[in-house]
């Protein structure tokens, strides 16, 4: 009925958060300090990770909105949702939004969480490998 509105609402929030994080990261990165610049560029910025969630939420909501247009549940005239035309259907729509819609948003966010966790583990593993390699080179030089 209108379950896609819940992930779309979350997408608005995450888009605003992404913009805020991006400007914060830009402000934190001082181009004159090489040390800081290296540290920042070695880590994947959080705004980049949030943009994955944005793409999933916006893309999914757009495609689901199309499905609702296909089924005649979303129309081009006010109130845009056919379920809003009578009280019973409006209640059913709200119930669907609070169950299916919320579950959709939670599932997509959980999948994103797994992606972020996996990327963090990969980055950490890479960092450890790099440190070990550097240590090997250093010990080789001292010998």
């Amino acid at each position: 009925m209108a379950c896609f509105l819940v992930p779309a609402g979350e997408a608005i929030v995450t888009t605003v958060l992404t913009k805020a994080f991006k400007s914060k990261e830009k402000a934190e990165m001082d181009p004159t300090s090489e040390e800081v610049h290296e540290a920042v560029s070695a880590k994947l910025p959080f705004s980049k990770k949030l943009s994955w969630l944005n793409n999933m939420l916006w893309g999914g909501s757009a495609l689901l909105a199309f499905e609702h247009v296909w089924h005649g549940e979303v129309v081009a005239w006010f109130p845009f949702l056919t379920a809003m035309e009578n009280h019973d259907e409006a209640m059913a729509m709200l119930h669907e939004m609070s169950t299916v819609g919320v579950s959709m948003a939670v599932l997509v966010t959980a999948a994103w969480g797994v992606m972020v966790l996996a990327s963090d583990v990969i980055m950490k593993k890479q960092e450890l490998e790099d440190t070990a390699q550097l240590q090997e080179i250093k010990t080789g030089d001292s010998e």
Partner: protein
Amino acid sequence: MTLLITVFAACVTTVLWYKKAPDDSMRLGFLCLMYWGASLMWMCDAIFEYKEMGAEFFTPEVSDMINDGFLGLSVVALGMIIWLAYLIIKDPKGIVKKMLTR
């Protein structure tokens, strides 16, 4: 059927993205995430439908399957149109800019 077609589209684009990675100048990552997002949402919808309908969920009417199949293909096409528009607006290779300033 719509879920199945979208999952297939997501898998194919993910393979294409992986083949090209780390070069993402075609912004295939965006298309992947869009299809995966929609797939997850439809999967959720399918779980709720299964809870309501039970085993009947797996034996849809032929007319419903055809309608859902058309919907799935249309969704894939719409996803590609959104991706193309995004690609042209972002213009990561600067081709559109070059064409306009030539």
